């Protein structure tokens, strides 16, 4: 009965190799995605170099589902630039245009006011209670480039999680069952 055990062993070792290969290739995908993201972060200087537009407040310039490329550097923020900012107490960053800038003499500290192109009023209603101005630490980056529609993928994934789980499930199944 030795040949049965032998062939079982060979199948087992084969499967282990197969599984290992799958794990490694999965690792490669995850790592290359991470490399691209971190590389972009480094090049642009912004902690999140790509954002998806979620609201229509900048229409007709930016529509929901468009992708913006951000940059962050030492250049001071100036009026007319489109910045992405975080307001204390709000999770989701906002993409709006700067309409007022006040810069102090010696320190160079800035105070800015923003407004969505498609909104009637400025953003003071969106800021934290009693907050009149945004300062440098609120700014995540300025929009420098634009790619339409691509962001719909992430919008669908976040708003209809079933698609996300279906996609992950299908991918996982294919990875497990796929042969060399």
């Amino acid at each position, binding site marked *: 009965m030795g040949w049965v055990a032998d062939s079982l062993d060979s199948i087992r070792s084969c499967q282990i190799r197969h599984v290992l*290969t*799958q794990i490694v*290739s*999965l690792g*490669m*995908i995850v790592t*290359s995605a991470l490399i*691209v993201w971190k590389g972009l972060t480094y090049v642009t200087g912004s902690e999140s170099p790509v954002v998806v537009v979620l609201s229509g407040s900048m229409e*007709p*310039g*930016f529509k929901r589902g468009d992708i913006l490329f951000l940059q962050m550097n030492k250049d001071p923020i*100036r*009026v*007319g*630039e*489109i910045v992405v900012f975080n307001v204390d107490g709000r999770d989701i960053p906002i993409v709006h*245009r700067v*309409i*007022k*800038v*006040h*810069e*102090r*003499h010696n320190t*160079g500290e800035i*105070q800015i006011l923003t407004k969505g*192109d498609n909104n009637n009023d*400025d953003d003071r209603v969106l800021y934290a209670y009693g907050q009149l101005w945004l300062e440098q630490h609120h700014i995540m980056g300025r*929009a*420098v*480039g*634009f*790619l*339409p529609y*691509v962001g719909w993928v992430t919008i669908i994934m976040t708003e209809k999680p079933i698609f996300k789980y279906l996609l992950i499930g299908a*991918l996982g199944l*294919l*990875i497990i069952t*796929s*042969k*060399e």
Partner: protein
Amino acid sequence: MHSFAYRLNTLLTFSLLLLAVLFGAASFLDAFNSPLSASSSHVQASAQVLKVNRFRRQLNGADEVSLTFNVSLDVQPLFTWNTKQVFVFLAAEYETPKNALNQISLWDHIILDKDQAKFQTKVTTKYPLIDQGSNLRGRKVDLILHWHVMPKTGRMIRDKLHLSDFHLPEAYT
């Protein structure tokens, strides 16, 4: 034979690369079409202050001004095949003892079509000129036209043109 994951990875990487190349090409062609250094000279614009509608000190001590302008501009050269819209706005710039720079947008306009990119109009300030203090009496203010070209895809282009300056009145109205 390659695994499914490997193929998917290659496909995704390739399509991203292709998108990036198209994005770059569009931006490159834009730069080629309107060289940044010369774009200001192509834009024709002027703005004069016709009237000071209101000039007062708010209860919190900040000066507030409302103005009426005559604006004429021609930004037709900014339009290319890749232009979705041109956002133009008129900003006031001045220096105060407190601030090295104050930039305040007074009026803005979205131009979607090349045919509408040349016009003359009388406008009142859409956003009042409000100082962070009461430093506006007799202050010299520069009027600057800014434009922001938003592409169908690719890099956004910003530039500006100094139009004129004027002195605010010495007394409140």
